[in-house]
């Protein structure tokens, strides 16, 4: 349970990091919080020849609000988001999601961008990014900066649209207005475990009618899953408990989940049916 040997580089600037990464991108890995990468290296499931530690680069951490969007620096720690005083439905969702990320000693090190780049289909941040159509800003030495929409970013298990010479620098999320309500519900075997299934939701209700509905599901496919069936079932409808139940049924019917030792496809479908209403319950106008 000791990592293979590697070269360790700790650049002081982003440009320097990109230059180092560009030397041999396929054999290099970016080290952010290390809470997923280091265990994989300890098991020797990952054997990078070079680690580019981005923890000394200024400006990669922290959040700013600009142009109606929240920009989250890729190296922002989970704990920072758990403690964010950002008001409104987005702040609520970030805090609620963060407390579900592992345990305290994981949240002190692990990062928002690290989770997004790792692309685990059950990760809270990947779900939030999918739910809110986040935009990922990535950068390479050769091609400069580009922005990738969440729908294009998460491609398959542990695989994103990023090239190996790119570093994720920030993620932007829409600052939801107060007409929205947000929620997350997940099912894990023990406190702090990866969710078997997780659901996040953001719903805008005006005069009792659903004007925007977003539902994303984790643990049901290779990447976080936007349930368009649940969303379209709710859009334009009168908000009611029955509507929530209908959305849950639509979501459960839409997914085609995998089976493993924690549960088969039928069980995961049952969890979708159970969790979508719980995520939406925290979004219900009554709970605002």
């Amino acid at each position, binding site marked *: 349970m000791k990592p293979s040997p590697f070269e360790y580089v700790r650049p002081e600037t982003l440009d320097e990091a990109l230059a180092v990464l560009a030397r041999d991108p396929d054999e290099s890995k970016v080290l952010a919080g290390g809470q997923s990468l280091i265990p994989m290296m300890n*098991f*020797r499931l990952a054997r990078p020849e070079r680690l580019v530690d981005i923890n000394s680069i200024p400006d990669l951490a922290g959040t700013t609000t600009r142009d109606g969007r929240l920009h989250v620096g890729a190296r922002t720690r989970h704990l920072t988001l758990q403690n964010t005083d950002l008001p409104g439905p987005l702040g609520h969702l970030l805090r609620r999601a963060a407390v579900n990320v592992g345990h305290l000693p994981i949240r002190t090190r692990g990062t928002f961008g690290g989770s997004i780049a790792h692309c685990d289909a059950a990760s809270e941040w990947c779900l939030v990014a999918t739910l809110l159509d986040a935009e990922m800003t990535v950068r390479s030495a050769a091609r400069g900066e580009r922005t990738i929409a969440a729908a294009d970013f998460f491609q398959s298990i542990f695989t994103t649209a990023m090239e190996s010479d790119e570093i994720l620098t920030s993620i932007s999320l829409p600052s939801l207005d107060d007409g929205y309500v947000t929620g997350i519900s997940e099912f894990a075997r023990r406190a702090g475990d990866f969710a078997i299934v997780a659901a996040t939701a953001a719903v805008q209700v005006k005069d009792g009618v659903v004007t925007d509905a977003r539902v994303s599901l984790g643990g049901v496919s290779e990447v976080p899953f936007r349930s368009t069936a649940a969303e379209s079932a709710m859009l334009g409808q009168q908000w009611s408990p029955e509507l929530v139940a209908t959305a849950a049924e639509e979501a459960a019917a839409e997914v085609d989940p995998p089976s493993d030792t924690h549960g088969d496809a039928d069980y995961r479908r049952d969890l979708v049916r*159970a969790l979508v209403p719980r995520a939406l319950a925290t979004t219900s106008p009554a709970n605002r």
Partner: protein
Amino acid sequence: MSGPLSEPETWTGRALPRLEDPAIVRGWGTYVGDVAARDRGCLHARFVRSPHASGRLISITAPAGVTVFTAKDLHDVQPIRAVLHRPDFVAVDTPVLATDRVRFVGEPIAIVIAASESEAEDALDLIEVEIEQLPAVVSTAHAIAPGAPLVHDVEFPGDPNTVVDGRMHTDGFDDAFAGAHRVVSIQVSSARQSAMPLEARAAHAAYDRASGRSTLHATLQMPHVTRTGIADSLGLPEDDLRVVAPDVGGGFGAKMTLAREDVALVWASRRMRRNIAWIETREENFLAAWHSREQVYDVDGAFSADGELLALRGDLVCDVGAYCCYPVTWGVEPLMAMAELPGPYRVREYSVRSRGIITNKCPIAPYRGVSRPMQVLAMERLFDVAADELGIDKVKIRHANLITEFPHRSPSGLVLDAASHQETLAAAVELADLEDFRSRQAAALAQGRYLGIGISCFAERTGYGTPAFAARSRPFTLGTEQAPVITPGFERVILTMDPSGTLTLRIGAAPHGQGLKTTLAQVVCDELGLRPDAIRVIASDTDQTPYGWGSFASRAMVIAGGASMLAAQELAERLRVLAAERLGGLPVDIDLVDGHARVRGSDQPGVAIAVLARDVYHSSHLLPDKGDPALEAVGVYDPSGTFANACHIAEVEVDPLTGRTVITRFLVAEDAGRLINPAIVDGQIHGGIAQGVANALFEELIYDDRGVLVTTSLMDYLPPTVAEMPHIDIVHLETISPASITGAKGVGEGGTIGAPAAIANAISDALKPFQVGVFHIPATPHRVRAAIRSGTDLHVIPLAVPTPEPEKEAQR
């Protein structure tokens, strides 16, 4: 709510903070990894392990510069062999490193030595192992099917791959069974579980060129037996090997079995004349450090109309894996199951078959509770199902069948000493307030919430010495050859008072977290009128302690405690004789109190024990009794065993949509006899229940159909955290039994034994509206949800038995 109400006047009975703890809480403990970390020049070992469940080892190749030893290098090392002397027992050898065959994923094939752990793992990556895969047997059903591949090429007296096949049938069974009002039949089963001590296995072998001796520091429960086993394997006189178990990071049974790796490590250290450490990884620990509990019991209870259990039949199957553990053998689970299935219940007629069946999986070894969690699950589910079928209250049916007269001889020949089965059930039921629960349950159900309550009664055999282990084998007589069987049991201690009047107690038991040094000090000090800080307990070092069997099977407090009390009484008697001479009066008139010997009833200050001690050594020519010029006593105790007993009650809430069970309340009425240290007793109960909760709801070692273990990390194998544990309330009853001279009964395993059944019964109670019950553990959320969804009981889903292929026969 536990513990005595007033502070006792003796050391025994106090919740004394442990003498072990101040160093540990400062981080000054010494575990094996710490011995290795402090030995700057030591080499490190890793093991090449089989990736296949069954195969023929063709070749092992390593590049130049890699230090690796294989079975070929160890050709003069004897295999490990543990046997029982009984006709149904099949013995096999366990090679220290795999020779021509591999039999489970994780089996050690070669030992690699390098300068550091990292470099040993680098070297591991460079070694190529060629294995011709052979068909693997992954389930007991497959193992005993005609034409199944054989895990070992030996003669099986009965079915293939059957290594233990115990049977018992009482004379009146058939009539009683046939005449019963109703026969209730159930099948219960448990997944494989790992003891999973937080410190995985670890060893550090040092070689001393000057003396030619080896010192093995290893994380062990049986240092002396380990020394015997390694010495036998390596052909060494035992004196050439010192075995030390320093601080041990949990054992739970898993560290009483001789590790092949430890033998290989000592061999390599002697071969290279270097110090070498092996610190097992968590992944290796799951793969190769012993499993347990993979059992299926078919049980039929023949009941009278009023709920009396007239006859009990059991067909008990234990998957014991690929090799036979040393010293207690792969008979440990099936034979325990057979002997103790009836538990605390009066079972006059009994018919049982109990089998150990081998498979291409990690070998089983003892783990806290050994079969009894399953026995209790079987009996307690049986009574709940019978109560429902017969329309009898679940408490009443238990009261009607629990033993009331002592000593009680069970149908398997066990003698149950004085206990309080009826009283603990009554006490737990009172604490639970069943009437209140039923009204809360009904109110919750009206809101769509599912609450349940479950009861479990059990007897925990503890402190059993040589007679109990001897009963596992046919009697044999000693001849000129070595006896065929290792029969554990006694404990021996040496208590010495030095010239300053302080005590050293050397014990053969080997504590690993139980606080035994504290509790033995409490027992000894009461006999001698000294304070516990006046005694040093030395354990777990073969150079410093008398031969003993170690700590396992809830035995140390009873047996080592009894031996310590005997030694202390002998020493006290000598001090009284010496004091009587000086103070006048008879020895019986002397009290040993507060470090002094005084004439009872006298207001004279008496004589300090330290003065008596000094004079024994320094003025021995004046000793009035002309006795030994030393203060030393040997205590030996070898009891036949005593049964602790308890009743557990669990309250749960089940989420019907996700299948999650939350334990909302856990109650224990415990009778462990006299409590030497109530805090330690409660700690054992709490910790035992946590492992029972794990067995009931969380932990499961899962093999795929090719025999590959898929749960090799703590992300897949799920010990509960504090968030999953209920608060536990304990009440104590105290039955003092003559079967234990200290009055203490063992309490190490009870929590683990009783909790799974209470939880399974509670979930089944909660699921009653769905008409499904729990018959397999762990009752994981997905299984509970599947039971609710399908409306069928939660049972084990057996692996399909592959169709036999004729050519496999030819491969034998």
